[in-house]
């Protein structure tokens, strides 16, 4: 659970700084003055919602990693060889992220055609990524690395599936952005929508890079455990 605690510590630091900036030490009963707050919040609600959601999703993935790191210390852990296809998939996901980044800047310029190209390319490459993951699964299964044969395999399937589900969710949001584009929605709305998708895509990419390095290199974390129990020895 060390990873989870580290993650929570990071969340706590950010939340703490934010709270402090909000005047957590002020004495509200002395403030008789009229409101100073603007009526419109600085960040659109949807963007704040996405930030909170990404935090929650990160927490979920970090917990999976925690479980993984605890389970891997058991005697029966035999990490499977990772299919080389995963490297290709990683490349595809990077391309997907770049395409959306391109769409974002195009939306900033107001270049609708470029936005459309970016969204289509980004979405297609994300679908290719998912298909690639599916093929990687088949490759693993055909090579005899089944879900039940070792917990390391089971974690491989669960972690990739969890990530793929998040990608699927992202595709739904992307499809909605595409719909607005085709309906000719106002540029402000489109900009926000593309912006949110791009942020989420970058999150998916970073999450995948971390998970992939975990699966591909299977580093041992026994040293972390050793550090944590060291004071008691």
């Amino acid at each position: 659970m060390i990873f989870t605690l580290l993650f929570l510590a990071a969340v706590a630091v950010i939340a703490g700084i934010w709270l402090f900036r909000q005047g957590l030490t002020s004495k509200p009963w002395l403030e008789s003055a009229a409101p100073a707050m603007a009526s419109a919040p600085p960040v659109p609600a949807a963007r704040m919602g996405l930030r909170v959601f990404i935090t929650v999703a990160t927490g979920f993935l970090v917990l999976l990693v925690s479980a993984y790191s605890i389970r891997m210390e058991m005697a029966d852990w035999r990490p499977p060889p990772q299919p080389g296809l995963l490297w290709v998939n990683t490349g595809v996901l990077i391309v997907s992220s770049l395409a959306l980044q391109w769409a974002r800047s195009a939306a900033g310029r107001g270049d609708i055609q470029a936005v459309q190209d970016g969204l289509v390319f980004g979405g297609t490459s994300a679908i290719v990524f998912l298909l690639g993951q599916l093929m990687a699964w088949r490759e693993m299964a055909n090579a005899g690395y089944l879900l039940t044969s070792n917990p390391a395999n089971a974690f491989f399937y669960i972690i990739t599936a969890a990530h793929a589900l998040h990608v699927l969710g992202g595709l739904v949001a992307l499809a909605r952005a595409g719909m607005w584009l085709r309906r000719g929605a106002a540029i402000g709305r489109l900009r926000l929508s593309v912006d949110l998708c791009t942020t989420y895509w970058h999150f998916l990419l970073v999450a995948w890079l971390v998970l992939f390095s975990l699966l591909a290199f299977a580093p041992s974390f026994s040293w972390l455990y050793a550090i944590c129990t060291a004071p008691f020895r």
Partner: protein
Amino acid sequence: MSSAAPGVQEVIPASDVAEAELYHPHSWLTKYVFSQDAKIIGIQYTVTALAIGTVALVLSWLMRVQLGFPGVLSFIDPATYYQFITMHGMIMVVYLLTAVLLGGFGNYLIPLMLGARDMVFPYANMLSYWTYLLAVVVLVASFFAPGGPTGAGWTLYPPQAILSGTPGQDWGIILMLVSLMLFIIGFTMGGLNYVVTVLQARTRGMTLMRMPLTVWGIFTATVMALLAFPALFVGAVMMLFDRLLGTSFFMPALVELGQLREHGGGSPILWQHLFWFFGHPEVYIVALPAFGIVSDLISVHARRNIFGYRMMVWAIVAIGALSFVVWAHHMYVSGMHPYFGFFFATTTLIIAIPTAIKVYNWLLTLWRGDIHLTVPMLFALGFIVTFVNGGLTGLFLGNVVVDVPLSDTLFVVAHFHMVMGVAPILVIFGGIYHWYPKVTGRMLNEGMGRIHFWVTFLGAYAIFFPMHYLGLLGVPRRYHDLGEMAFVPPSTATLNAFISLVAFVVGFAQIVFLFNLFWSLRRGREAGSNPWNATTLEWQTPETPPGHGNWGKELPVVYRWAYDYSVPGAARDYVPQNEPMPAPTRAATGQAT
């Protein structure tokens, strides 16, 4: 704070308000059933939770029949008994307490108290409720599944939970895990709403430090829940894999009734870590909203500002943060590395300090107040007694070595029922008596309310206080039948029978409450918009019950904190948050530090 001249603007003109994405219902169905109005969703959550809670109450009766009068009801065999305790525990903790406090009170109160029109994502909010309802349906379905619901205990410890020595191992456990996953998905949609609404949708002037403590409690609890529930989700997925696909996440090599299973190498302790990483924050997810609500009840009904508001806010935040590093105090005797005991005992006892501060501040709010002993106030007082009692016994169990003899005895059962069963339930009741006039426009009947309070409070205390001593004696929990035990004196049977009888009476008192809810809907006294003379925004709505969008054309503007009761020099003994008042009077008198 910059200081615009007070009194210039009382409300934000409609033209100044950012367009809210309110969904306007077109039919009865979208208005009351598939509603996107947080108030309706809050009521839906509360009603559903109370309904499923009633099932859990009946289950507790059946358990008490067996414990008080063993063998009287012949259908309660060990398997059924374990199914009852499991479902009772899970329903009460997750599907009742969490759902009412966050889904019910959270939905109804957050937008109103912050001067918002609605939650920021009304559609997701609606989905949240319907997913919750689906989770409840799946849970209830397990009663009718072959083999019945799971009887693994609400902690669902593997390997036991998915082996044949435990009832409900074929369908019950699967439905339970699926239901929990649905609940978590539903809650996450709602939780995103509560958090982002607090962050984004506060009306002009509603700084964080002007928020009522109710909102602080619900907000902090929601943040915690968003971070803690995924642990249960991950655990549930992994256990489902173990159960359905034969993986070995939690399953070591073991012999099941003489047969060697094909599992191997898994770690039952891993589940316990995941479960309690959710399970301990869960205690505070239930407690923090209750803390917040009770603070407001005491302040309103004692006509006095909440004492030490800043300290109260800090304590809520501190408890929320600390509660993530105490989870393994549930595992002192689980066989985890014994050295962790030092760390977790220390963190656990440290958390007692901010909690104690909260108790002191409630008491100091009563001190030199003008205490109206209304029904909500009575429930608040009852909460203080039961919470302090249950909190103090927590100091026994949190102190690692004291936990060794007491763990898994009735002492634990008595402790957590007192502190996270009775205490938050009393707050929920208090809150319902307090806000029912806003929800329906009518007061709940006070006579019935008083009967309900005294029977519930004294009865619950009489049930759980003596139970501690059975635990101290050594009576283990989760025993279908104590049978013959040399160290247990015969008088224990008498005490168990007494506890059961009181439990039946307390249970019946809840019928008075449910009747009151329906009776007062038509017959209750007209409440008016602000029957308690409270300062917070939900009592300042133009209509009661508040209409769709809450505030009519113009949003309120907030000029002061939520606790201006009995301000010296003010004409009335309360000043609503949206009422501007000339600055000098307050600056001169408000600095009592």
